[in-house]
């Protein structure tokens, strides 16, 4: 589904603090399944994840998504692809403070020009599904860690993406909540979504949910992992 | 905003009688100016003020009435180049 070909990403190119985040990455990711990017911090997991999620452009190399070459697409189309294909769960959840859980969940769908009422209904259904429907009208800063995580998941799902991307999703969760997160991921995988996780937490990459582990070190893929 | 315009229209209609009355008085008494500032003759009757007003006290006289700074200087008093 996604093919990466000789991807290289350089930050601060040409400046004294230039550094190469990833280099020579070739990776093919099939649909349906859960893949974990494993590696110590600074190994390039996040950079690779953001390139996979069309958030950042590689300095060189080619990316094809569903047989479509997207490296050279203009920003607008990349945004559209990102919105429709990917659902993101960030390390800090990155919920927008001061507004309600419901509004946070609805946010990614606003540019789609969906009818407000039907969007609201879909968001409520998602929250109910994740068992936090009761908190829909609460402000996000009053949420517990687990509730914030579910809100973030609901937000990632609102546009019905085919791929879920999560960067260190368990970094701020205790063991119990981490297990719960993986359980939700399992259900999503069962529904046919592709899951991409970056983590150095054994709870994640040793989980049965994960079908394939891609190991990274110093910006290079050390082991592409053919499967469990 | 709509209310404002409505109030304005209504007030204008109500005040029409007063305006007529004022006009009648202006005609009857041959008045030439509004009674806005009474401190100096060039502020009480600006339209009757002679052309030499800037020099009425002495050639370097500076304007010292507050109302003088609200009222604009008549264009005819500027040198031609500045008009």
């Amino acid at each position, binding site marked *: 589904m996604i093919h990466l070909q000789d991807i290289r990403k350089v930050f601060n190119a040409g400046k004294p603090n230039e550094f190469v985040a990833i280099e020579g990455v070739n990776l093919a990711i099939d649909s349906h399944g859960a893949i974990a990017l494993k590696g110590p911090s600074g190994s390039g997991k*996040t950079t690779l994840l*953001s390139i996979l999620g069309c*958030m*950042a452009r590689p300095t060189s190399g080619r990316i094809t998504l569903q047989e479509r070459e997207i490296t050279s697409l203009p920003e*607008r189309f990349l*945004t559209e692809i*990102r*919105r429709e294909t990917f659902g*993101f769960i*960030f390390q*800090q959840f*990155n919920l*927008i*403070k*001061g*507004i309600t859980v419901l509004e946070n969940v*609805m*946010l*990614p*769908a606003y*540019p*789609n*020009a969906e*009818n*407000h009422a039907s969007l609201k209904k879909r968001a409520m259904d998602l929250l109910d599904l994740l068992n936090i429907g009761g908190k829909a009208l609460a402000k996000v800063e009053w949420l517990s860690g687990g509730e914030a995580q579910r809100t973030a998941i609901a937000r990632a799902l609102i546009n019905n993406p085919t791929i879920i991307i999560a960067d260190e999703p368990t970094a701020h969760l205790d063991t119990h909540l981490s297990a719960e997160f993986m359980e939700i991921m399992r259900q999503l995988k069962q529904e046919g979504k592709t899951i991409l996780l970056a983590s150095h937490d054994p709870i994640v990459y040793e989980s049965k949910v994960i079908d394939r582990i891609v190991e990274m070190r110093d910006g290079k893929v050390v082991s592409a992992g053919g499967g469990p | *905003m709509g209310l*404002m315009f409505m109030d*304005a229209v209504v*007030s*204008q209609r109500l005040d029409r009688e007063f305006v007529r*009355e004022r*006009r*009648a008085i202006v*005609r009857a*008494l*041959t*008045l*030439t100016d*509004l*009674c*806005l*500032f*009474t401190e100096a003759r060039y502020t009480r*009757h*600006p*339209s*009757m003020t*002679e*052309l030499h007003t800037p*020099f*009425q006290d002495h050639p370097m006289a500076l304007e010292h*009435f*507050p*109302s*003088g*700074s*609200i*009222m*604009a200087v008549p*264009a005819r008093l500027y040198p031609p180049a500045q008009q």
Partner: protein
Amino acid sequence: MKALEKQRNILDFTLSSLGRRKGKNIALVMVYTFVIFLLASVLFFTHSLKKEAALILQDAPAMTVQRLVAGRQDMIPMHYIDSIRQIKGVQSVVPRLWGYYYDALSGANYTLMVNADLNDRAGEIIIGNGVSWRSAPGKRNNQGLQKNDIIPFKTYDGTVLGLKVKGLLPFASELVTADLILVSETDFRKIFAIANDQATDLVLQVRNAKELPTIAAKITQIHPDTRPILRQEILRTYDAVFDWRGGVILMVLAGVFFAFIILAWDKATGLSAEEKREIGILKAIGWETSDILLMKFWEGAAVSLMAFFMGIFLAYLHVFLASSILFAPVLKGWSVLYPHFRLTPYINAYQIATLFFLTVIPYTVATIVPSWRSATIDPDSVMRM
């Protein structure tokens, strides 16, 4: 329809997002409202005065002729009347007698004017509203001067001439008559020692208003020491007098306005780290740069429109219902006697549009422009936070 849904969704988020920084936004709206309030007050006030002047002074004399001596207005000899009357097109020439009288008792300047109706009623006066209030300091129960009260006038040689109030000018005419005292010709000449063959100026009626400039030219030809003033000039004077671009109020306003610009600039350019982070999140979850600018546009528009409507509404109340109390100290100036007239509200769409373009548009633009820069940040910056 779809585009409308999108606008609605984004506006929805903007409004709840404004609610988050309540304190900051309320403060901003208040300052903004105040600026618009001041601007609109000046605009409403001057416009209404101009309009009122233009309406009322249509009936001012078609031409006034005054005589100048050494740069000062002087008495005009009565015999000028005959020569002027002979000019073709002149319908009538009437001498006016008027002048200023300083009343030491009340400390106010009055305009003394001869009225033909009083000519066979020497000893009687008719007073304007301002005079009636000002000249009765000793009066009890806060009443102004009444009929048959006597005002003492000090004549040129120091003797006192008591004149009896025989009537009051209608309250509604206060805008033109507040400081007027109408006297008989006999009393006027007695107070100021003006010879019988002299008048203050002459008032002309002409058959055809188009001939006014020709007649004026002829008058200055016959009497080079005179200066004719046309009604058109009077109207023009009033149009220019309250040209709202000039004056003290605007100087003060300019200060307020610049302070506001600095505030708005600071608020708009200095996107806080929190706001930048939010823009990053929105981009990451699939908002386009244009969506973010749209949101910022709504944010600027919401703040400035709210302030705009509130400011204009308050200004309307201030100028037309509260008689511009805030401007009163400036307007009163050195006048002891000040007419408290209530202005007829003359407002038009043009004024509102002027204010709109002066305030709402620049502010809205000022909020969008800086977001442009941060809206183009790479969305993956959120991943690294």
